[in-house]
C-alpha cells in the first residue's frame, strides 16, 4: 500500500516541544540538482582547461589528472559541500534547501557520503527515475540514498522576525471596549485566517486598489461572521481598519481593554 505522503516532518524533543521541517518538493530538488549539475560541469571544464596547460610538460599525465579530477568532482562535490555547508550544495543554497537528519541530529560524514554514493542507483536508468519514484512512494519524500542515510531534504525557513508595528500599531481600538466579544474572537479565529490578514496588511501597498478593497472586504466579512460587535463600535471603520483592529485584538492582551476612552478620560 502506498504510504501517505507528508509535507512536513515533525520531531518531538525530549522536552515535549515539537518542531517540524517542511519537506522539499521534487520540483525544487530537481532544480537544485540542475544547478549542481551545471556547477559540476563548469568546475570540470575549468579544471580540464587548467590541466591542458600540463600538456606542455607531459600529455599523458595531463590526461590522467583530468580524468581523476573529473571523477573526483562528480563524486566528491556533493559529499564535501554538504559536509562543509551542513547539508547544502550550491543548488540547495540557491533553492533554500538543506539535507537534515530524520531525527534532527547533526549530519555525520558517513551519512552524507552514503546518500551521495547511492546517487548511482537513484539516477538509474536516467534523470533520477529510480530516485524520483522512491520519493513518490516514501512517506518523507526520500530517495534511496536518503532512506539509507536517514536523511531528508527540507526547505530552510528564512529566519525573519515580524514587523509588529505594521500589523497593528497600538492606537485606540473600539473593539477592545467589548472585552467579552474580543475574548470570543480570539478563541474563534484560526491561525490561517490570521496569517492571511497579516499578509494583507503588510503587503497592502503591493495590491491594486480594487483588489485591496475586495481583499479587505472579504477578510472583514470573515471576521464579522465569527463575532458580531455592536454597531456603535464599528461606526466609521473601513474594512481595512476593521481588519487591523481585529489583529490588535488577537495579538493584544486582554488588559488592553483598559485603553478605552473612558479610562483615558479618567486619567
Amino acid at each position, binding site marked *: 500500500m502506498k504510504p501517505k505522503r507528508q509535507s512536513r516532518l515533525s*520531531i518531538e*524533543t525530549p522536552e515535549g*516541544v*515539537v*518542531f517540524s521541517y517542511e519537506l522539499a518538493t521534487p520540483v525544487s530538488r530537481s532544480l537544485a540538482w540542475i544547478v549542481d549539475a551545471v556547477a559540476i560541469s563548469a568546475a570540470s571544464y575549468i579544471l580540464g582547461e587548467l590541466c591542458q596547460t600540463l600538456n606542455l610538460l607531459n*600529455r*599523458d*599525465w595531463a*590526461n*590522467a*589528472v583530468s*580524468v*581523476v579530477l573529473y*571523477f573526483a568532482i562528480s*563524486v566528491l562535490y556533493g559529499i564535501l559541500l554538504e559536509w562543509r555547508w*551542513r547539508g547544502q550544495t550550491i543548488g540547495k543554497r540557491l533553492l533554500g534547501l538543506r539535507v*537534515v537528519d*530524520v*531525527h*534532527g*541530529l*547533526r549530519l*555525520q*560524514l*558517513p*551519512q552524507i*557520503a*552514503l546518500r551521495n*554514493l*547511492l*546517487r*548511482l*542507483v537513484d539516477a538509474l536508468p536516467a534523470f533520477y527515475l529510480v530516485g524520483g519514484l522512491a520519493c513518490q512512494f516514501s512517506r518523507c519524500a526520500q530517495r*534511496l540514498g536518503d*532512506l*539509507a*542515510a*536517514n536523511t531528508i531534504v527540507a526547505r*530552510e*525557513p528564512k*529566519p*525573519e*522576525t*515580524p514587523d*509588529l508595528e505594521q*500589523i497593528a500599531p497600538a492606537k485606540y481600538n473600539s473593539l477592545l471596549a467589548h472585552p467579552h466579544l474580543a475574548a470570543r474572537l*480570539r478563541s474563534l*479565529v*484560526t*491561525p490561517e485566517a*490570521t*496569517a492571511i490578514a*497579516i499578509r494583507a496588511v503588510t503587503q497592502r501597498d503591493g495590491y491594486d486598489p480594487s483588489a485591496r478593497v475586495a481583499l479587505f472586504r472579504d477578510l472583514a466579512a470573515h471576521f464579522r461572521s465569527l463575532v458580531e460587535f455592536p454597531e456603535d463600535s464599528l461606526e466609521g471603520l473601513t474594512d481595512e481598519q476593521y481588519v487591523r483592529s481585529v489583529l490588535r485584538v*488577537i*495579538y*493584544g*492582551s*486582554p*488588559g*488592553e481593554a483598559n485603553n478605552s476612552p473612558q479610562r483615558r478620560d479618567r486619567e
Partner: protein
Amino acid sequence: MIIDLPRFVAAERAYWDELQALVARLETEPEWRLPLAEIERLHYLYERCSADLARLDTFSTEPTLRAFLESLVARAYTEIHETRAPIKVHWKAAVLAFPRAFRRHGAAFRLSLGATLVGCVFGWFAIRADSRAKAVLMPFPHLLTSPAERVAEEESRKADRLRGQKASFSAELMTHNIRVTIFTLALGMTWGAGTLVMLFYNGVILGAVAADYVYAGYGTFLTGWLLPHGSIEIPAILLGGQAGFVLAGALIGWGSGAARSARLRAVAPDLFAIIAGAAGLLVWAGTVEAFISQYHQPVVPYALKIAFGACELIALTAFLGWAGRE
C-alpha cells in the same frame, strides 16, 4: 489566554538572539569546545526558546515568528543532542576503521566471496561446455583472441605499447573500478539482489577467462598477468559487495528488533569505512595494472610478477585480518 505578542517578542528577543549567535558559532566552528558555564547557558537558552515555542503553539499567532523559533529550536536541538565528538581527522583511527569494519561484517564478506566463486565456477564450466560463448561472457576485445595468439603477441612485443599513455590508462582503470565498487555497494538497496548479480557476473567473467587460459596451457601467463593488480582489485570489488550486503542486511533486518532507521544508522560508519578503504585499494590496483601488469616476460619475469602479487595479497590479508585488533 492570548499573549501580548509585541511584549512577548520584546521580552524574549534578547534570549533568541543570544541562542542564535551561540548556535551559529557552534555550526561554523565544529571544533569549538564550550566551557561548562557556556554549556549550561546554551542549555538554559535552548529550554527557554523551547518553552517560547510551546507557548506560541497554543495560540493563534503570526506564522513567520513561529517558523523562526522552530528553526532556532531545531538548530539548537541538533547541537545539544549530538553525543558524538565533532569530526576531527585522526589518521591512525581513520585508517584502522577500515579493517575493523571489515572484520565486523565477516559474514557479508563470505557471502560476497561465495557469490563471486559461484560465478567463477559457472563461467569456467560455461567456457568448457561451449567455447563460442566467449563473445558473450568476455566483453573485452583483447580477450576474444585465442590465448596462444595473445601470449605470443605479448611476449614478442618489442615496443612499449602503453608508452605515453600509462598514466591516463591507470586513471581510467582507477575511476572505472571505483565506480563499479560504489555501484556494487549502492545495489544493496535492492535488498542485495543487485549486488548478488553484480558479483556473480564478475565471477563469471573471471572464471571464463581463467578456464580459457588454463586449458590452453597458459596458466602461468594468466597468473602473472592478473595477480599483480588482481590481488588487490578483486578483493576491493568483493569489499564493495560486502558493503552492499551489509546495507541490504540493515534494510531487511532479519533477526533484529531495531527499527530500520536505527539499523541503517548503525551500519553507516562501517559502510563508509569499507567503501573508502576499497577506493584506496583500487587507486593502488590501477597504478599496478598500468605500470606492471601489462608487461610480460621477458620484460618482467612471471615469477617476479607472481611473487609481487602474492606479497600484496598476503599484506592485504594481514592488514584486513589483524590491523587494529585490540
